């Protein structure tokens, strides 16, 4: 097999070949480093590539496997980590000039878990400054280099699309995994709040932050979740609970599952090509045996209000001390975020906290007769670099608002949500479908995504390299 073909294999297939000795971790690392060399000049998905460390780790993994000490599906698999996550001994900038020389003493819990599973860290992927935005400069969208990849986990999604990463981690406070997944035509999973530890990940908003995988295939996200999910004493939001076998549960049929399609909000002001692709995706799922039911998502204004209150107030609180000393090193947009957050009063913040369980209960009540809910991930395809507004068939709105409005409701409510590619527009730009589940029902969400992927094959559309 050509080494470059390895870059498009599923993790389970690669794991099997590594276990059998047909493919070596060193081959994988070398193929990826070669691809990074081919693509990085244009895509700029990485801020740090740990090539030598990765080669050494690959050699070590290979020896362990040869000695019969195989640790499981991620042993010998290279992973790329969003640069918002601490990595021991490796520069971690959080996308900020202030932390340009920061070298953490410890790994974020998710990084530690991946390393314990035998994964090899290949490098750090670019993030928007402190994850406070959806552009992720200077990273480009591999599908069209004059367009943004989305963000804030834009480096991770762009690296998957450019095949310069096999699998990655991202984080999501208002859509930062699902926005770039949608714009780059890859898979992004925001798990239920509290399923995956966020310890060692620079916070945007403690009560809204989530950590999850960005991958090429739904099955790869299931593999990643298997290893990063679970209790962590360093993250008070996590709790001891049994973790299902996410990969095995992908094989259960979707026949008979019930999908809800909101009749309000989530299909308003959506580009006509996006709308058409999402409607077609719903038909495909119906064809796979799922029943489709219209529903109304209640109190959406209250949900977006509580989300905005918590997000801005927690950003202002978290950055207050650093900002006092280093305001001149923040980008202008981040300054506005932080200072606008300081205008939110304590009573408004507490009211948002009080409203949160009530609003979440109302959403779950609306979902009581369905297993999942289906919406577009984004109202538009990836915008051009420099655009500040989204233009949607004659309707105009702030670009960042367009990015978060279908996604942030599930940060406030903490529900699991997956973005997968459901087609391409007439300019060959990817379109995203969002699949939302009930708390801790990631298996169901992933299963629906997996069956859809198998039925349609959009994941086989690849960015041509060289770019």
């Amino acid at each position, binding site marked *: 097999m050509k080494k470059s073909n390895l870059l498009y294999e599923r993790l389970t297939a690669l794991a099997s070949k590594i276990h059998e000795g047909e493919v070596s971790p060193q081959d994988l690392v070398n193929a990826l480093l070669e691809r990074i060399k081919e693509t990085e000049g244009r895509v700029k998905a990485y801020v740090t590539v740990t090539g030598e460390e990765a080669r050494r780790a690959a050699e070590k993994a290979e020896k362990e496997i040869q000695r019969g000490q195989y640790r499981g599906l991620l042993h010998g698999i290279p992973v790329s980590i969003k640069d918002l996550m601490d990595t021991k001994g490796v520069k971690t900038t959080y996308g900020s000039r202030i932390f340009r020389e920061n070298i953490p003493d410890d790994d974020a819990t998710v990084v530690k878990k991946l390393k314990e599973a035998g994964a090899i860290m290949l490098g750090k992927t670019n993030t928007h400054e402190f994850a406070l935005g959806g552009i992720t400069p200077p990273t480009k969208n591999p599908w069209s280099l004059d367009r943004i990849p989305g963000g804030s986990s834009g480096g991770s999604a762009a690296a998957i699309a450019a095949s310069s990463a096999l699998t990655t981690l991202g984080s999501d406070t208002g859509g930062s995994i699902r926005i770039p997944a949608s714009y780059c035509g890859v898979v992004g999973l925001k798990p*239920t*709040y*509290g399923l995956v530890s966020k310890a060692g990940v620079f916070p945007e908003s403690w009560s809204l932050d989530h950590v999850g995988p960005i991958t090429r295939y739904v099955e790869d996200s299931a593999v990643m979740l298997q290893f990063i999910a*679970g*209790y962590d004493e360093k993250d008070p*939001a996590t*709790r*001891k*609970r*049994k*973790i299902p076998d996410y990969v095995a549960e992908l094989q259960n049929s979707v026949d008979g599952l019930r999908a809800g399609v909101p009749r309000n909000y989530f299909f308003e002001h959506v580009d006509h090509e996006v709308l058409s692709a999402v409607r077609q995706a719903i038909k495909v799922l119906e064809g796979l045996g799922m029943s489709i039911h219209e529903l109304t998502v209640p*109190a959406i*204004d*209250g949900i*977006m*209000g*509580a*989300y*905005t*209150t918590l997000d*801005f107030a927690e950003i202002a609180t978290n950055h207050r001390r650093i*900002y*006092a000393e280093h*305001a*001149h090193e923040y980008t*202008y947009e981040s*300054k*506005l*975020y932080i*200072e*606008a957050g*300081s*205008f*939110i*009063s304590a009573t*408004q913040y*507490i*009211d*948002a*906290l*009080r*409203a*949160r*369980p*009530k*609003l*979440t*209960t109302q959403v779950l009540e609306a979902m009581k007769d369905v297993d999942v809910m289906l919406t577009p991930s984004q109202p538009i395809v990836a915008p051009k670099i420099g655009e500040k507004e989204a233009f949607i068939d004659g309707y105009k709105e*702030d670009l960042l608002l367009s990015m978060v409005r279908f996604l942030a409701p599930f940060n406030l409510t*903490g529900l699991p949500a997956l973005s997968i590619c459901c087609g391409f527009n007439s300019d060959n730009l990817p379109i995203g479908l969002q699949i939302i589940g009930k*708390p*801790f029902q990631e298996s169901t969400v992933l299963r629906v995504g997996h069956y859809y992927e198998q039925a349609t094959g959009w994941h086989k559309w690849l960015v041509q390299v060289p770019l």
Partner: protein
Amino acid sequence: MDDRVIEILDQKLSCSLMAFQSSSRKRLKVLSKNMFIASFGGSLLKHLSKEFVESIVKQLDLKVKDEKNLKDLFETVQANYSFIKAVEDTTLTPSDDPMLYVRFLQEARGGDNEEK
């Protein structure tokens, strides 16, 4: 913007400024200021004296200072408030304890499947 709208805006602004200027309590000053910045956004700036703007910047310890930047900031505050206002419309009673979210998360996770 027609003359009638400007007239109403001027009247409202005068009231807010009066409330702000007549208040001797710092907390009320901050609340008043937040509220009228949230109400009027960047359009507020042209109605305020330079000294008054400087006092806002100083009191809130803003790093964003010049007129263009303050205009952007006030627009952001105004945009946020247009969302935040909706929380006020959510029916909340004294029994809506903010800690209920903790219980909600625990119940959502179930108690019978804990990791051994």
